[in-house]
């Protein structure tokens, strides 16, 4: 009888242990599901994330650099907008008055002096702003350069690059038709927002495109800064000579045009590619030859 009781206790004790352990497992399972939901992972996504190599193109420092560059570019644009606008008007007036090639005309000489003064004013303003902009751009460029080289350049083959980018509609994608219809600050603000939207991490294809665009933009701005710095030095020396020669040099026009192009986003060339028409969805044949 005693044996029977003991046996019953043992059995019931074991069952309790079973129940306890199954509850524990259930709790753990629930916790995992909850955590998954909390971090936005559906099972499919989790699998997809495991399949894709982890690419970190935008650590916090890079994101902050982009933000800073956008702000600096905005400051620069605001201070230069009025001057460049005046300068352009004066250059237009100079051309329409057919002053090119005429010498000794007093009116034309006055116009040239005004243009030279405005041009120097523009250069001086840029000189004030340039060091800050240069630091910011260099820092962004350098960090993006390292990231692009290490994360995409060394970890992937060109075909893997396509696989990563494939089928994802990206905001800033056109390489053949890269448009400059936005100002520099707007562009950097847009990049910043895109990176923030994606959380700055994960192997997102669109982030690779954003990184590429941002990097190429920083390269372009860096070139402009170098060109402008040279021009400032040159202009300081020759401003008086220019005045006495009575010329609006092609270099001046080129610099103004470049500054406008990069800072204010003057579009060059024709309109971009028209968007694709809606495609058919009924064919999903999978060939055994597909790569």
């Amino acid at each position: 009888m005693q044996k029977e009781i003991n046996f019953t206790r043992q059995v019931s004790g074991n069952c309790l242990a079973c129940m306890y352990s199954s509850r524990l497992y259930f709790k753990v399972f629930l916790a995992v599901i909850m955590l998954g939901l909390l971090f936005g992972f559906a099972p499919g996504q989790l699998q997809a994330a495991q399949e894709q190599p982890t690419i970190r193109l935008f650590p916090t420092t890079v994101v902050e650099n982009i933000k800073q560059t956008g702000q600096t570019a905005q400051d620069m644009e605001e201070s230069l907008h009025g001057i460049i606008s005046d300068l352009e008007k004066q250059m237009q007036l100079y051309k329409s008055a057919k002053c090119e090639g005429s010498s000794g005309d007093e009116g034309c000489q006055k116009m040239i002096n005004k243009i030279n003064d405005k041009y120097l004013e523009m250069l001086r303003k840029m000189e004030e702003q340039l060091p800050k902009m240069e630091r910011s751009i260099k820092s962004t460029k350098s960090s993006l350069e390292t990231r692009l080289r290490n994360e995409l350049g060394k970890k992937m083959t060109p075909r893997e690059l396509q696989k990563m980018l494939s089928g994802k509609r990206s905001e800033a994608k056109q390489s053949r038709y890269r448009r400059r219809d936005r100002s520099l600050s707007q562009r950097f603000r847009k990049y910043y927002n895109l990176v923030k939207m994606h959380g700055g991490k994960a192997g997102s294809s669109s982030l690779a495109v954003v990184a590429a665009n941002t990097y190429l933009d920083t390269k372009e701005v860096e070139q402009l800064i170098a060109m402008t710095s040279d021009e400032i030095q040159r202009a300081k020396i020759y401003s008086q000579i220019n005045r006495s020669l009575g010329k609006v040099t092609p270099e001046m026009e080129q610099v103004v045009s470049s500054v406008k192009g990069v800072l204010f986003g003057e579009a060059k060339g024709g309109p971009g590619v028209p968007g694709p028409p809606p495609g058919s969805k009924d064919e999903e044949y999978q060939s055994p030859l597909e790569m």
Partner: protein
Amino acid sequence: MFKNNNMNSSKGMQQRYSFGIRPVIWIMAIFFLVFSLGPMIGCASKPEPKPKPFQCQLPTGVNLDQAMAEARSNLTHQKCQYRFDEYFQALLEIGTGDPKAENRKKFSNFLVWANEQGILNRVQAKEYFNRYFNTTFVALPDDYNVCSNCAKQAEIVRSMEKELRMKEKGLLRVCGDKKRYYQANNDFDSVLLVLEATCTACEAR
């Protein structure tokens, strides 16, 4: 006596010799007739018609199925196999006359058949299919990493441009598959942009 004997013996010898030489001559004559004149008489009496050489004709018409059957029959001749690309191009051209989604499967089956027949190897068949009927760019190397391929970036871009035109023909004009073609076009833009930036970064070391 002795003389007679001698004479007898020489006659006997002559008889013996003539008996021995004649069959040899006869045998030689027969051999001569059989081996030299025989075939000439045979050829003259039975002239065989010369087989006409097979003409490899590229498929024509407007029906893709018929054209493919025609191409298959032609391509079984070894002589036509080295002209596979011409056959493929002719079929594509016929396909543009009636663009539809099923054409993708038809071309895939045709390439699989060509592989099974030993006209193309597996890699070649895959390349044909993917160049014309898939969004993946065969022109993009898959051996070394991006940085290692930057030296031939210009060549890659040219090949991709060429391949995009092939995809336009295959996906858009033969299959009427706008969705896939525009995806390939988008991929082309994105890849070129990222490749340009990455290679600039690789070279900036």
